[in-house]
């Protein structure tokens, strides 16, 4: 822009940016502070904006009383297995959509996009019945399969955008050299697109890690619960105990935050590419 920035203008700009940063981070700050207070101090006036005495009692309680460690393992397994499988499957699909022209291509892309638009909850009931018939209700495998289906459409659209950024001369050269298309894809394209693929994996992982309604519907027994399901169980009990609840929230958010921090640049790229082309 050609305009000169004035000092008041700059102050207003960074004032606004600063304010929004504070607003964005405050909820995370507050839940962390709550989690670190001793159980009694949470319900005490005046509210402490920094714990008088930092205590890990809430975390200890979480892992001792509730099976929180097990829930985290369940979530970790579901999210990493589905995340990985989805990424591979959507890599193949995204590649085809990016590189080939064929009659039903528009319909395929539309079929993926539509799943992002329609109220998916209409499938919740029938899915439960279907999974019951397949003996997949309340099994880790069942949840993983459903998560895979859930993540494929967006992941495909995202990866397709990354393929568009890579010239097709790359795999053609490899294919002329005698590689099959599949081999060319994994030997030549995947290494080039690794940042984008990692971002897609992280995005899928985080989506599955955070998923609530499917796991609430499908997973009944305590030993199969994922973290969000367990947390939603904390609510339905009469009174929320905010100490363990905050600790659980922190334990849920921190891993995803770390992953997102590493991949945010590529996720942003994938999202904007996906949406603009969509």
């Amino acid at each position, binding site marked *: *822009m050609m*305009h000169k920035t004035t000092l008041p203008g700059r102050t207003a*700009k960074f004032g606004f*940016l600063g304010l929004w*940063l504070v607003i964005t*981070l405050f*909820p*995370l700050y*507050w*839940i962390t502070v709550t989690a670190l207070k001793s159980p009694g101090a949470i*319900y005490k006036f005046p*509210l402490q904006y920094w714990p008088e005495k930092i205590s890990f009692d809430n975390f200890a309680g979480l892992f001792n009383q509730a099976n929180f460690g097990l829930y985290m393992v369940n979530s970790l397994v579901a999210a990493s297995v589905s995340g990985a499988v989805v990424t591979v*499957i*959507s890599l193949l699909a995204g*590649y*085809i959509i990016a590189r*080939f022209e*064929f009659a039903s291509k528009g319909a*395929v892309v539309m079929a993926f996009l539509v799943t992002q*638009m*329609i*109220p*998916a*909850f*209409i*499938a*919740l*009931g029938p*899915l439960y019945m*279907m999974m019951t018939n397949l003996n997949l209700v309340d099994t880790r495998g069942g949840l993983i*399969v459903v998560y*895979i*289906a*859930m993540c*494929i*459409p967006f992941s495909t659209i995202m990866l397709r955008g990354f393929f568009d950024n*890579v010239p097709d001369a*790359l795999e053609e*050269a*490899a294919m*002329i*050299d005698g590689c099959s298309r599949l081999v060319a894809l994994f030997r*030549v394209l995947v290494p*080039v697109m*690794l940042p984008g693929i990692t971002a897609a994996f992280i995005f899928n992982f*985080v989506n599955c890690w955070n998923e*609530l*309604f499917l796991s609430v*519907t499908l997973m009944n027994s305590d030993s199969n619960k994922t973290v969000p399901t367990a*947390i939603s169980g904390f*609510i339905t009990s009469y009174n*929320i105990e905010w100490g363990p*609840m*905050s600790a659980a929230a922190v334990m849920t958010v921190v891993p*995803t*935050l770390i992953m*997102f921090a590493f991949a*945010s640049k590529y996720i*942003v790229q994938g999202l904007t590419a996906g949406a*603009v082309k969509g």
Partner: protein
Amino acid sequence: MTVKTTEGEVRLPATADGPRRRGGPGRRRSFTARRGLTIAGFLAPAAVFVSVFTYYPMLFGSQMAFRNWNLNDLSNTDWIGFDNFVAIFGSDQFWTALVNSATWVIGSLIPQFLIGFSLALLLRRRFFLRGPYQAFIFFPWAVSGFLIGILFRWMFNGEFGVVNDLLMKAHLIQSPLPWLADPSLAMVAIIIANVWYGVTFFAIMILAALQSVPDELYESASMDGAGRARTLFSVTVPYIRTTLALTVLLRVIWIFNFPDIIYGMTGGGPAGQTHIVTTFMIEKTQQGDYGVASAIGLIMLFIMLVFAVFYLQIVHGRKTT
């Protein structure tokens, strides 16, 4: 694009001297068939998963809307025509939820758009630490909507909530407000949470659009003596209008369908007064009332379709004039 810069590091098999086409004419002939097989084979896993676990239950669910289908009593799953719809339209709960849906969408969308747009404009030019800043304000996206509902539920707690505490410290209120116990205040609270969550999306999308505006446009606008506001409304906005319109449409649909924050924050309470249509439908599903839930789903789909058609007509109509 980093993807491109890493290209150089990839060792390509030597091709310059080797024979270019080993297959010759014979390979050509089977080309179409092989091409079809490749397309089908690569797409198959994705297609199978999405058809079986997304589309099949969705379609199956759609027909349940016209049947007496309650998980608690499956002895009679007869076709009952539009009875489920009649029951829904006759319930006050549904109309409350529908009005709430409108409030929820409009009340969330406008602030999200305005704040997101402002952020995008301010982030357009590079400044010291812009990258980390963007990563930080990206944070809400790593958190599930449900958990955001929980975070805000705690902050808006009527007794020990930090929001009341801050407002009282600022002397804006004299005594704590019962945020989540009062239906109107609860609507305000869930919308605030949703604004907080959704601003990032707009900021990112609009920023990407802004970066697509060629610099020459700004230069000529500035040479014509256009001021900052003038440039914004006569150059920037018209240039990115299509992206803006599309982003808004996607967001409306998405917010309309988005139950997570409400589910975590109020669960539709107090007394069902903060249900939007989506959370209402989920409640029906969890009660096993699949027929009614599916019918609500179809109503939602219909509302969004009508909205999208009208919206696109308006946007498109403006474009041609």
